[in-house]
């Protein structure tokens, strides 16, 4: 592999992991909030 490939791989993997982590955290928060709202409505 040439130097540019190592750089591209590093940035691509980092972008994927950080975006995935951010998406997972924001979706977890949204789902947890929705669950609380649903339970409070049922009560």
């Amino acid at each position, binding site marked *: *592999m040439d*130097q*540019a490939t*190592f*750089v591209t*791989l*590093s*940035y691509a*993997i*980092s972008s994927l*992991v*950080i975006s995935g*982590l*951010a998406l*997972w*955290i*924001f979706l*977890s*928060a949204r789902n*947890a*909030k929705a*669950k*609380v709202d649903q*339970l*409070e409505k*049922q*009560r």
Partner: protein
Amino acid sequence: MSDAVINSGLAAYANPARFMRLSQTLVPFFALPAVALIAYGLWLSFTAPADYQQGETVRIMFIHVPFAWLAMMTYSIMTIAALGTLVWRHPLADVAGKAALPIGAAFTALCLITGSLWGRPTWGTYWVWDARLTSVLVLFLIYLGLIAIHRAIEDKGLAARAAAIVTLVGSINLPIIKYSVQWWNTLHQPASISSLKRLANPALPPEYLWPLFTIAIGLTLLFFALHLTAMRAEIWSRKADGLSRRMARQAG
């Protein structure tokens, strides 16, 4: 400052409802500048000149070094949260410690991956068992172990105390990571920016310092946005569990 003043100061932020209101306001203040700074930092990192020795691979430094800083900063925050759980019994301390885990694990994994991808063209190998690399791998394993503790122990209070004790024991690894390049003969280079004194006369030229600091500040702000959001998710999740149990008791 007296204990009473400290306790009353901490108690003001011990109310999860108050935290939820405050964090709702703070998250966009961290997230928006984070995205802007990371985007600008990436542009700077790709317009910086190639290094006369390392060539294009020097660009890996602009993300590898911030990941390393954040991996350690996250663990430092978790260590303070562990003290908050065990000593001050702050209601949000356990939430803060648990919410930081996946973020810290991700930053540590990225530090190891980008370091490995930088090592191959620079050192000729993806991995060596030197003190710096091994101690960062140990940090990653501690993060995984703490996640496992939270998943394995059903009693949240017990899990919080067990995780806090392991976090405090594991914090001995932080100075080992920091000083490993001085204490042992390692393939990993010593820190180029290790103190404020060194910052005044850094080993790096400004065209490398700017992208490095821009991405580092951007990722730090992103950490706080993600951490606060993860804490909010954990608080809602616990509230949902509590409501479910209460409704099940009322139904039974």
